[in-house]
Structure formats: structure tokens, C-alpha cells
């Protein structure tokens, strides 16, 4: 098993580590860096729970190796809210729309919505819904998630 040095920024803080080549970014974020808000629901790229933002884009961290994230900026659910605890708009809308029950799928959904509404180009409602079809929630029946996405699209004027 080969070991590799990686340097990356997670939620604004620098991390240096030695990781096995086979370690996924998701496992690294959870087990080595301590960001247990990254949830692993399938570890084969279908459920979307493990989604994090890597260099501005939503990525399934179970399908990316930690070594591939060398030099990247990573954001997890822990890094969305402001330092003073003010929730990110995506978190706030999800809360107001009761878009979660057990909360297991939630971090992935937050990161996808944040990636698509946080940059220069704001996604429209159809794009958000399409992207959300890659997230499985077994609890809510998606009612609140859909309402939240609609509000985010409306707020961004799309």
C-alpha cells in the first residue's frame, strides 16, 4: 500500500496528511480530518449523501480519492454557516421548509444546493431539481426539499 502526502484546505483551514492511495476523500474527511458531517450512505456514488464542494463544484466524496484532492479547497456541511453561527441561506431555507427528518441525507443535499446557488451563475429551478434527483432521501418524501429548492431558485431570480 502506497502512502502519499496531501495538502488541502478544508473549511478554510489547512490540512497536511499522509494517506493511503486507496483512501477515499469521504473517509479522509470523516476519519482523519474529523468532519463527520460528511455522510456515507452507499459508498458507490448513487445516494449523494457524501457530497462536498471541491474547488467550487459539488463532488461525491466516496468516488474521489483523498490524493486527488491534493491542493484543493474543500467545503463540508460544517463549513457552510458563518463563524458567528448564522446559517447559510441554503441551511436556513432547508430548516424553514422542514426539508429533513433524520438528517442523514441532508449534508449532501446542502452541498449540492450550495454549490449550484453559491457561485456567479445561479442555477434555475429545473437545474436544481435535476441535480437533486441524484440525492436519495428515504425519510421525507422530498416535499420540503422541493420547496427549499424552489425558494432558492426564486431568491436567485431564476
Amino acid at each position, binding site marked *: 500500500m502506497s502512502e502519499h502526502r496531501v495538502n488541502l484546505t478544508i473549511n478554510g483551514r489547512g490540512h497536511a496528511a499522509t494517506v*493511503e492511495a*486507496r*483512501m477515499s476523500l469521504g473517509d479522509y474527511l*470523516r*476519519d482523519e480530518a474529523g*468532519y*463527520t*458531517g*460528511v*455522510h*456515507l*450512505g*452507499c*459508498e*458507490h456514488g*448513487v*445516494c449523494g*449523501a457524501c457530497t462536498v464542494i471541491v474547488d467550487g463544484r459539488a463532488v461525491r466524496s466516496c468516488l474521489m480519492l483523498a490524493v486527488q484532492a491534493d491542493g484543493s479547497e474543500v467545503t*463540508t*456541511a*460544517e463549513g*457552510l*454557516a458563518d463563524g458567528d453561527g448564522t*446559517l447559510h441561506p441554503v*441551511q436556513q431555507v*432547508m*430548516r*424553514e421548509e*422542514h426539508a*429533513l*427528518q*433524520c*438528517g*442523514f*441525507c*441532508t*449534508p449532501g443535499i*446542502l452541498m449540492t444546493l450550495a454549490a449550484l446557488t453559491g457561485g456567479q451563475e445561479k442555477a434555475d429551478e429545473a437545474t436544481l*431539481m435535476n441535480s*437533486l*434527483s*441524484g*440525492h*436519495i*432521501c*428515504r*425519510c*421525507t*418524501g*422530498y*416535499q*420540503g*426539499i*422541493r420547496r427549499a429548492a424552489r425558494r432558492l431558485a426564486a431568491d436567485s431570480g431564476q
Partner: protein
Amino acid sequence: MNAQQLPQGLGAARYIGQRVLRKEDPRLLTGRGQFVDDISLPGMLHCAFARSAIARGNILNIDTSAARDMPGVHAVYTQADLAHFNAQMLSFFLLPPEVEMTPLASDRVCYVGEPLALVVADSRALAEDAASLIEVEYAELDPVVTLADARNGPPIHPGTSDNIAAEMGDEELDDDLAATLNGAAHLVTQKVVHQRISQAPMETRGVVASRDGNEELTLWITCQSPHMIARWVSQSLGLPQTAIRVIAKDVGGSFGLKNHPWKEEVSVILAALLFGRPLKWIEDRYEALTASNQCREAEMTLQAAFDAEGHLLASHGDYACNNGANPQGPDNNIAVHMFVWGAYKMPAYAFLTRGYYTNTNGLAAYRGPWAIESLIRETLLDRAARKIGIDPVEIRRRNLVTLKDQPSVSSMGIPREDITPAECMEKLLHHFDLAAFRKEQAAARAEGRYLGFGLATYIEPTGSAGSMPVMTGELAQIRIEPTGKVTATMSTHSQGHGTATTMAQIIADRLGVAYEDVTVFEGDSARGGFSPGAAGSRQGVIGGGAAISAADLLAAKVKTVAAHLLNASAETITIDGGTVHVTGAPEMSRSLGEIAAIAYGEPDRLPPGCESGLEVQHRYQPPPMTFTSAAHACVVEVDADTGFVKILRWISSEDCGTVINPAVVEGQISGGLAQAIGMVLLEEMPFDARGNPLSATFKDYLLPAISDIPEFEFVPANTPSQALGGMRGVGEGGAIIGPPTLVNAIADALIPFGELPEPLALPLTPTKLLSVIEGRDLAAHSAPAPVVVAAAAPATEPAPAAAAPAGEVRVDGAWDMVLKTPMGPQGMVVTFAVDGNAISGRFDSPEGSQDFIGGTLEVNRVRFDLKVEKPMKITLKYDLQFDGDSLSGKCKMGMFGSAKVSGTRKV
């Protein structure tokens, strides 16, 4: 927020009935939840299992040497190492199984995936590596996989004479019943074959076990009640002297799967006791799908006799379910029969019900385990209505028990006092204009679009307590802290239910404090008292009652203490917004904090004999059962080209009594409905003939996504129950009433093509629906299908007037044609032969040749179907316009949509 009047004299409410923001959400939205895999202890090691590769056989040898020798591996255990603990596997009702069952397989295996050995290693990856090095030699036996195998095959468990795990009812039909059934004006029989389902909570199973000294054991485990786990483990291990503490703060869904530990969790606990270091096991999704317990696989035949006007006369049910090899309790699902006609005026019912052992994963609970009763009854009623020639609404109006028919007792002995399915249905129909829909449906059919309306009604037993050992009351312990803030410890537990929110709403209202000032603790067996947690739609009903009564007791104490301190009478004291008021004397108001500080710190100032502090506990014992009633309706469109079902509307009219938090209640119903939609359209856990599970990933086991689930509309139909506070349970209902609602809508949509195939076998995949639409079995892969099949002329579609051709129309002969497929343009030569208005011909392309017949010619429009077998079975529907030496049009390619066609006469 507006105050609302509560039923049962509960007075004004500020929080009950409101969409209050959840207490659980701030931590879950910021990645700060605490799920079992988030627990890490010093010195903790990781576990993985070696599992059986065969479904049935004897173990000749397990060679663990290579695994043991692997660097990073600390131990490898087999049942031989764990046997001395004598751990007893137990059911939900804490009873031992009737067949031998050990945590790890001992000398035989009885399903693929059964755990054989446990590896303890530095990391999960290393443990998995080592587990794959364990070699097992078996003497394999032919497995018993299906219900038919179980009926006819050899008994799978030694010491048993057949595969019947549990049985009730009569094999012989009573003469009177038989006479009524056979002599009735209408006898309708419905058969349902329900597929196997995986509960599939998004968080898989997992446990962290830590032996703390010789007399303490701490478990973090994903579960439905830490109290239930503590009780189960203590009885299973016979360790009453050991203090067992179970912690489960956040749980990522459960739906019945995590009622109590099973083989893997027990093995990890025993290994932790043996090895002495904390051990963690987190199931991966492959294991969750292939080795966890499963549910729902069953067959049922229901006969119902009606008089000429469609009134029910008698019924018989024959049910069998697959228990797997090691069910969490042998199960014949008697509840199916108890409730199948519970909401209907059914004079006589008899049944036969059986559970069978097979060499498959064990049966565990899943949201509304008896739900097949509603599926089979409600689909039977729709078929009966069509047969008798009345409307689906009308057949229910004639047979449902209304409030006027109560109190009464069902033919199965279920007392009915306040069920309202008929009233829910009328409210639903007030909201949904069925006559207008029928017009829309007829218009759509004329355009070749197939809309359907589905209706279902049901009742559901909820909040049951007092009749089964673990189904107890619920405990609330509430205290006003010396600071004036309120903390409550509840026996409830949330796997997404939001009980910390709903219980806080109740407590805040009843105590007269702000919701923000109430904190609810649950999820730790060291706090509070026993309850089975989320099982049987009970927490809102019973936990809610406990919160009300404990809060009322505490408010009474505050009033006594305040009256004494303020020299007023207790009746003049009110508590509001965290302040204690004396009626008519505003200057005497005191904050709760001031009163509390005295109650704890200055006992001398309390009334004589008054216990110091402001703490109260109460265990609420509800009525034995509380019924929830509902009517649901949905509208679907079935695409006749693809067999895909699109759900256009879904309306829920549900009597769930007092609603504590509408967002939570709607969330429960919606989640259940999504699971129902999954069961009807998508989800399936099949096995091959050797007992190998065939859905091993989420690419095989299809869970509904946001694009599969419509918006749900909620029509209020609430009447308070007789439980304290008037709540009725809503945890399971969506999963029970959803399947028949959707199946009925699909059947209604496809009426122009005939009835759904018998038996009704779930899931209703596009292939199955297309088979109805095309009138042939598209699933029969093995049958050699003829290359050319006569196409049914699309008679159901009225032909739009063909555009008058500009030039001469001559279809005969060879044409160069290009089909623009999603994969790129495909060229071919098509030769048409015209005989009057009939068209036949031949396709030639580099891939081969194919003939077709059965096409039609109208003026210059040619339509024909080409049924191709490669690369997949699909019907290509061509619709072409000819104009001189050119042709144009489209080709509908099943689920792949339409492609453009163009062509020129071959010269």
C-alpha cells in the same frame, strides 16, 4: 403565532398545532449530528464479517489462518469463540426463536450473507481485506428460496417437520361461509404477489461496543429505542449484573429494521467483551442490501362476495409470507386478517395465514408490516366495482363503517368507536372534483393519453399499549431548572421523527413557557425509562400524553408553591411566557426562575410537606389502541408508449386527531407515501434459484428520487381521539394506504386495454404495464419471440386528418430512410408493399433485415409498428407522410422518446 383551541378541553395553545421549527435541525444542518459512525474512542478497533457464499449447507471447515496472519489484524472470531457467552437471539417480544440460531453460524449456514466469522483490525479497510481471506468449505445443499419451494421442499431447519414458521386459521372453509361466497350475486377474487423489500434506511446498521471494566458495557448503536436495546441485550446476554448503557443520539432512519440488535450487532458486542477494547462495526451498503433483514415478501388471495347492489356479504383470506431463515420472530402476520375489513361492514370473514422459513434473509419489520391487507382489499373493491358496474366511490359508500354505525365491533372482534374513513373520503371528494376528472380522462383518452384516478380508504391501529409485553406506556420526566429553564427527559426516540420538537411544543404550552426555553433529551438508556420507541405509530399518541400529564402535574406544583410564596390562592395563579401571574395583581408577577430558585434553594419557604425542587415524572398509559383513518386519492398518467407512470396529483385526507406539528405530521405521511410509491413502481429485492440476492447496490435496488414523487396535498379531516390530548398515530399510514391508491389509479388508466394482470405482482414496472398495453408478455425473455409480429392497428387513436399531399402519392417500392436516434443518424433501406389500405414491407440495414406487416395507409400517411428484439425488446412506432419522392415523419421508440425520420425514393 395564533392561539388555537384544542380538543378535550386542553385550552388555548400557542405551539401545539403550529409548524414550529425543529429543535433537531440546527445540529443536523451544520454537520454536527451524532450518528453511530461519528463515535470514535481511544484504542477503538474495527470489525468486518466473513459471510456465507451459499444459501444452504453444512460448514466443513473455516480456515482463518491467512486472515489472522495479516498485519493490522488483531483477532478473528468464529462461533466457537463466542459460544460460551450463550447469547440468546430474541424476537421483538423478547422470546427465543423456535429454531436454533447463533450470532455467528456454527455448523451450518441458511442464507447467503449469514455471518460466519468476525475480524478485528486496525481499520475497516484492513478488516475487510482480512475477511476476504477467510476460506470456508461447505457441503452445499439445494436451497429453499421461494414460498413455493418452502411449501414443497425439505424443511430447512433441523428438528422441524416442515417449513411452516407460524400458522393460524382454518384450511377447510366453513360450510356456511362457502355457501355465502358461492351463492352470492358477485364473487370477486384478488391475488397479490408482493415483492421483497429492503427497508434501506440511509444510515446502515452499526454499533460501537465498549466494555468498561467487568461490570459495565456501553453501546452506541443505530436503533429505534436505546431502552429497548438495553433490555434486549441484557436479556440476551443474561447480564443483569452488568450496567448496560445504550446511546443513540441521532439515527439515520430505521423504518422497523432497527427495532432490536441482530446477529452482527450481538457478535460485535460479544467480541468487545472478549477482546476488551472498544470495537466498531459499520455495515456497508452492499451488506445492508444483501445481508440485512428484509421484509414484505408475501402472497395473498382474498375472496369477497357481494350482493347484487354491491354490499359485502362474506370474505375469505389466504395469506403466506416469507420469513427467511432467521426472522426476527416467526410471523404469520395475523394483523393482516384482523384489520383487512376493519373499516368495512363485513358480516363474515375467515382466513388461513402462514409464515414459511426459506434460505433467504430473515424477516424484520417495515412501516405498516400488515399493509398488504389494504393493498388487496382496496384493489379488490375497485375490481368489484367495475364488475358490478358501480363507481369506486359508490362501492365504498355502500360498505364503509360511518360514524353513525359506531360503536360496533368488526367480525374479527375489533371495537370501532371513532373511526372516520367514510368521512375522510367525503372530505377528499369535496376537495377533488371527480366528475370533472372523468371528463378530462375521456378527453385525454380520445387523444391517446391514459389518465387514471385511484382511491383508497383505510384504518390503522396506532399507539397500542398494554396488550403486548414491550408495547408499554411512555415516560416523561420534566423539571424546571433553578434557572427557570425547562428540561425534559422522554422515553421517546427519534430516527427522524422530531420528537424533541413535538414534545417540547406540548411541554411549553402546558407549562406556559417559551418553546425556546424547553430542551428535550432522549436517546440514552441512562436517562428516562423504558419504551419500545418508534414502533407502531405510537410516540405522538403516548409520548404526547405523557408530556401533557407530566407538564400538568408540574404546573400544578408551581401554582401551589407560588400561591404559598405570594400569599394567594392556587386558583388565581397562571403561568404565561415563563412568568407566574396572580389574577388581578400584576405587581405580584414573578419569573419562573425566581420561584424555581426558591423551590430548590430555600426549602423552608415551601408549603409544609412540599418536596423541594420542581421536578415531576409521569408514565402515561393510553387506551389499548387508537385508530387513525384516511382516504387518499391520486391521479396518474400512464405513457402508452413507454409504460412509465407519472403521478400528477396526490391528495391525502387523514384523520390523525390533534396535530402537534403539521410539518412533522405531513412529513411522516409523505415519507410513507414515498416508500409506497417505491414499492409499487421501483423497489425489488429478487433472488436467483440458488438463493443469491440480486440487488446488491443502489443501481439495482431502485429507491424513489425527487423526480418520482409528486407534491402531496393535505385535506384536514381531524377528529380528536380518546387518548389524552386527542392525538392519533401517523408513522406508518402512508406506507399502508399509498400502494392501493397508486395501483388503483394505474388500473383505472389502463381500462381501455383491460384489467391489470392477475395476480397483481409488484412492482408494476414499465415492462409489465406495456405488456398490458400491447397485450403480450414482454417479460418473457426466454421465449423465442417471432421476428415479425403483426402490429395491432392503432385503432384507439383517432387518426387526425391526413394533410393533403402536394404531389402524387406512391408508397410502393424502395426508399432510403434516415432515423435520427439519440446515438446518431441511422441509415436503412425500406421497401413497402401496398395492398389496398394495408402496408407491409421490409427493413434492410447493416445490422440485418426485418419484415413487418399490419401497417395502414390513409391518403399519404403510413403508420406501422416494428417490433425489434435487439439491442432490446422495443416497439418502434412509425408515422410517416409521403410527398412525391420524399417522406418525413417520426418514430416513437418506447421509453427513448421520438426520433425524426426522413427519406427519399431509391433510384
